[in-house]
């Protein structure tokens, strides 16, 4: 039984509510309201061209279309599993578009939207979830590390990479992705200590989607996550994770501060995982339908669409063309996924080491001989 002490601050209390609500102002940085109204913030702004604004919409819509297609492919048995990003498109696209050439991102396993912004071919991501490899993209060429499945482990890699950037005297920044659950991991806390101690040019981008599979945020933290940063000695900010403009503005500023030698920032992107944790999960067992309905009103794509329409930045023809691009993308992802070839059995031996060991070379030879023994044989 858990007894809360009177003095313990409950996370973002909203009287009479039992669902995670948007936190009260002034904590939350927002440039585009859920209703699609453009608002100003004293510390953060974005100055985007009309093309860039439409480009963000296109990113969000295409990433969601990809996600829908991937979920369908899993249901049809073509993927082993899929980790949906539904609802987190703005957090990911905003963060990804804040990166510059030369910057490096360290994703979890759900950052398909960031992968998209880094030019990673969606089929490489599909390959991981289909089981043909562990992600075939080139981290150096894309500035996007391979997915890391162990919760939070990549935060240390990002910090170490940033320490390397420092030693190289490069003007680059590193963006580490993590979720709300990961903030409980020791390694994530160690990453923040190393980053702070060495003023490493790394930004911790936490998508607080309210659940670590089934466990709500309250089990991970008794304070709003962004306030954790104060304990490590660097700034923490909370941004509306469903507002792509605010996410872009906040992440850009944090990355620039890192490049300029001001050290790390912790960004809490307050968002919501509208789908299941993965296709193996059943969120109806641990959260109310009403909660989902509430978050649908804050949809990251709908609000940008309203804004673009009302301000005359995009017309129906534009939205239709994005839909058509989405269908084309989905078709390419579908056919490309079905065509992904199974890797040869011997490939599992080939990259365990940079310098192959005699032991493993012998096992590989045994494996080949064993399988060769069946060719045209009795079995």
């Amino acid at each position, binding site marked *: 039984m858990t007894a809360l002490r009177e003095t313990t601050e409950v996370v973002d209390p909203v009287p009479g509510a039992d669902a995670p609500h948007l936190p009260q102002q002034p904590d939350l940085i927002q440039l585009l309201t859920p209703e699609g109204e453009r608002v100003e913030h004293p510390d953060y702004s974005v100055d985007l061209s009309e093309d860039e604004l439409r480009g963000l919409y296109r990113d969000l819509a295409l990433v969601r279309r990809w996600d829908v297609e991937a979920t369908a492919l899993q249901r049809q048995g073509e993927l082993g599993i899929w980790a949906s990003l539904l609802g987190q498109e703005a957090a990911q696209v905003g963060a990804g578009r804040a990166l510059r050439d030369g910057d490096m991102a360290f994703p979890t396993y759900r950052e398909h939207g960031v992968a998209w912004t880094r030019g990673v071919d969606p089929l490489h991501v599909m390959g991981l979830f289909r089981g043909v490899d562990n992600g075939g993209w080139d*981290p150096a060429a894309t500035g996007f590390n391979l997915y890391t499945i*162990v919760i939070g*482990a990549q935060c240390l890699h990002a910090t170490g990479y940033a320490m390397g950037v420092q030693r190289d005297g490069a003007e680059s920044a590193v963006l580490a992705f993590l979720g709300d659950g990961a903030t409980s991991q020791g*390694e994530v806390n160690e990453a923040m200590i*190393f980053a702070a101690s060495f003023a490493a040019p790394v930004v911790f981008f936490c998508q607080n989607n309210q659940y670590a599979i089934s466990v709500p945020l309250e089990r991970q933290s008794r304070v709003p996550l962004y306030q954790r940063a104060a304990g490590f000695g660097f700034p923490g900010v909370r941004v509306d994770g469903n507002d792509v403009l605010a996410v872009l503005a906040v992440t850009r500023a944090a990355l620039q501060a890192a490049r300029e030698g001001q050290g790390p920032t912790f960004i809490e992107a307050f968002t919501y995982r509208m789908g299941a944790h993965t296709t193996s999960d059943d969120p109806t067992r641990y959260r109310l339908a009403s909660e989902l309905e509430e978050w649908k009103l804050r949809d990251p794509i709908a609000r940008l669409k309203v804004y673009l329409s009302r301000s005359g930045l995009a017309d129906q023809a534009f939205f239709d063309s994005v839909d058509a691009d989405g269908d084309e993308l989905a078709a390419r992802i579908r056919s490309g996924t079905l065509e992904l070839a199974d890797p040869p059995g011997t490939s599992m031996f080939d990259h365990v080491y940079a*310098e192959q060991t005699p032991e493993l070379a012998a096992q590989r030879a045994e494996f080949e001989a064993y399988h060769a023994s069946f060719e045209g044989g009795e079995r």
Partner: protein
Amino acid sequence: MSTETLTIGKALNLGLRRAMEDDAKVVLMGEDIGKLGGVFRITDGLQKDFGDDRVVDTPLAEAGILGTAVGLAMRGYRPVCEIQFDGFVFPAYNQIVTQVAKIHARSKGTMAMPIVIRIPFGGGIGAVEHHSESPEAYFAHTAGLKVVAVSNPVDAYWGIQQAIAHPDPIVFLEPKRRYWEKAPVDTDATPGPLFASRVVRGGDDVTVLAYGPMVKTALQAAEAAAEEGRSLEVIDLRTVSPLDLDPVYESVRRTGRCVVVHEAPVTLGLGAEIAARVTETCFHSLEAPVLRVGGYDTPYPPSKLEEEYLPDLDRVLDAVDRSMGF
């Protein structure tokens, strides 16, 4: 030719220094390795000469050391991580096993992990809990890692340089109770290969295998056995993963008897794997089962009991007697 008499500790120090001179990407990381020079002084003077960007006193967090080493390696550096004592490696175990060991395979060979994890290992120094352990089997069981255990100043001097230059991650085990053992080291010599075992004493009756701190024990046993007219061949395995057993097979085919010695607990230790392989390969030559001498399957005991826990000359000779008795 430049030959100096060096302790294992000093040989490691000079080897690290030379590796840092040879490659500006080599970065040492660990707890107390800077001003203090490490609790065993293995990095003594290196921060003064190479600066605190290359000899990094890290926060007190082993997972942090290994995890940031991964990131540095991704950026093109060659981190050499010091784990202060064997029993303190476990907070870093997750990073070592799930990341360091697997990133090369995960990336289909596009990302190398040239990380050296230096660990003073083994007992015999009268320490408190967690300062005397032999965790090599955990790492040898993990695909993607290589594990080396040096036994003498020459291998310490060359081995640390070879490990740092090697493209794969290496757990580099240093025999802490032998840090002060001395031998002449020719620093101009051409070293032999890192992943190779070596016959360190020839003999005809029983093949005795050891690595790290137990090599000296095995040699002492061979000396004592010789006085009783028994001839032991002692092989220093030097590398625990991969195992280089060809010289072992050659030896066992001559002697027909084999005893494996290590400080780690016997059950599922390296001796078990070696016994299996020797049996598979030399079955028709064996006159006796391969016998294992090691620590007991208990937590490493309080130091007043460690002499009874650790294999010593007498326990090795007892195993030799049993082997000869078959």
